[in-house]
């Protein structure tokens, strides 16, 4: 086992990506994720990798698209306004069925917004984001350790399903330091039959493409892609269940909101309120099943978010509105306090028991 080191979340992402065999990073400076680029700029040249500061986020994601076509592991990172710029390229990567990792260390929006933590890109990340019918695999780390682990997992899932993956973090997760153990990854690139690496005059040419001028063909590729999405929904939904065994109320929160909520859940338990938490680890696929099951047992849900209420829609869909779903939130770079969440839990439970 490797020793634990103290690292910023952003640095943990960068080092984990290198451990996972990623040797190509393209980015553009933006707070609060710049440590990722800085780390890559320092490390990549020493290990024969590529760090390139692109002229824009648009260029960076299209460089990613180029490398992704070769089948090599590749990533970019940015924060909310920059990720909006990348949406064109992300849609092309999704449409060409290429694996790649996009990291979004979210900050407040819309527009230029602010630079403090936010989760208000939830819709953009989980519902597609760019044009067309598609999904990204979206993972939401809640610790520096998970920043590392989920970076590695993102590469693996992206490759397994040929679907781009997004690591959806926020300014807090990016900036905070916690001890992290960086796992050794046994990554061996596999031969793929779809890559553009030169025909060597041994095969017909491969084409990386998302253009289908015949509607019948475009329909067919979309339907086939959604069959893969179905498999992802069945196999890859991940979540953490916390104190849910006898829970009468269920907090739903991801990322930094789940960290804050955990304090509140423990405090509420100490007051005798039977509350637990379901923490979605994958935001797409959304962990519908445990929420549907909880809806049969609990009296209500509390969605804790750093947005005006985005994930709450998925909670309502997953629970088919069988029980009330309340929102507890702060936005614009503000973070709910454990006390605020505790108050919301108490209100939902009808006061202290």
């Amino acid at each position, binding site marked *: 086992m490797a020793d634990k080191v*103290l690292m910023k979340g952003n640095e943990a992402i960068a080092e984990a990506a290198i451990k996972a065999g990623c040797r190509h990073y393209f980015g553009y400076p933006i707070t609060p994720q710049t440590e990722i680029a800085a780390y890559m700029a320092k490390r990549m040249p020493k290990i024969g990798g590529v760090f390139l500061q692109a002229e824009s986020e648009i260029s960076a994601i299209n460089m990613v698209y180029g490398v992704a076509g070769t089948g090599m592991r590749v990533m970019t990172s940015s924060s909310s306004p920059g990720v909006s710029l990348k949406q064109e390229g992300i849609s092309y990567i999704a449409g060409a069925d290429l694996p790649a990792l996009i990291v979004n260390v979210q900050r407040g929006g819309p527009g230029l917004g602010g*630079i403090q933590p936010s989760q208000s890109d939830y819709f953009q990340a989980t519902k597609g984001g760019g044009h067309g019918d598609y999904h990204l695999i979206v993972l939401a780390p809640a610790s520096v350790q998970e920043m590392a682990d989920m970076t590695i997992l993102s590469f693996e899932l992206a490759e397994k399903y040929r679907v781009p993956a997004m690591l959806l973090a926020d300014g*807090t997760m990016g900036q*905070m330091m916690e001890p992290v153990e960086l796992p050794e990854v046994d990554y061996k690139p596999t031969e793929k039959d779809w890559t553009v690496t030169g025909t060597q005059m041994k095969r017909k040419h491969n084409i990386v493409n998302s253009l289908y001028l015949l509607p019948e063909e475009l329909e067919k590729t979309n339907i086939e892609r959604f069959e893969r999405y179905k498999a992802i929904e069945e196999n890859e939904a991940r979540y953490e269940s916390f104190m849910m065994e006898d829970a009468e109320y269920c907090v739903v929160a991801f990322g*930094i909101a789940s*960290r804050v909520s955990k*304090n509140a859940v423990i405090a509420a338990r100490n007051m005798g309120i039977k509350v637990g938490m379901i923490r979605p680890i994958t935001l797409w696929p959304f962990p519908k099943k445990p929420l549907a099951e909880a809806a049969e047992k609990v009296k209500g849900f509390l969605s804790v978010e750093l947005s005006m209420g985005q994930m709450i829609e998925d909670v309502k869909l997953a629970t088919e509105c069988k029980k009330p779903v309340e929102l507890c939130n702060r936005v614009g770079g503000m973070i709910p*306090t454990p006390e605020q969440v505790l108050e919301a839990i108490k209100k939902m439970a009808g006061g202290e028991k």
Partner: protein
Amino acid sequence: MTTNTLIAGFGGQGVLFAGKFMAYKGMLEGKEISWLPSYGPEMRGGTANCSVILSDEPIGSPIVSNPDVLIAMNLPSLDKYEDLVVPGGMIFVDSTLIERKVERTDVKVFYIPTTKLAQEIGAPTLANMIMMGKFIKESGAVTHDDMEAALSKVVSAKRADMFEINLKAIDTGYNY
């Protein structure tokens, strides 16, 4: 035990550095730790702060809104955070830069002229580490053993010449 600490001061006072030292010290003692800095334009010459949590339990929120320990390296930090300290908590004050007294009566207060002491030991940039020495002595959040190990994690090899003076600064605070 959990100690929620907020270290605050001007950018350039080594607030984040002190927090990192504290975090490493805790980590090397096998504690759960988290370190969260303020970030953005405020760091450039304005105020800076960081939340450090040292705990025997897994850490929930890494944000310290009500600190057990406040380390105030300048007046704006004391003004801003004094009221947020939990009753029974501690406030460490750099009494060279902060002339007023703490108004709270339900907390333990330590006045240390760290900026002055730092100049006296010939390390004018190490008021932060003098404060760390005092913090270690009074808070009991981490032990006084093996300062070298934690220090070696935060003083880079390039600045190895700074190692001894950092140790001296910690000692100065510890023995103040």
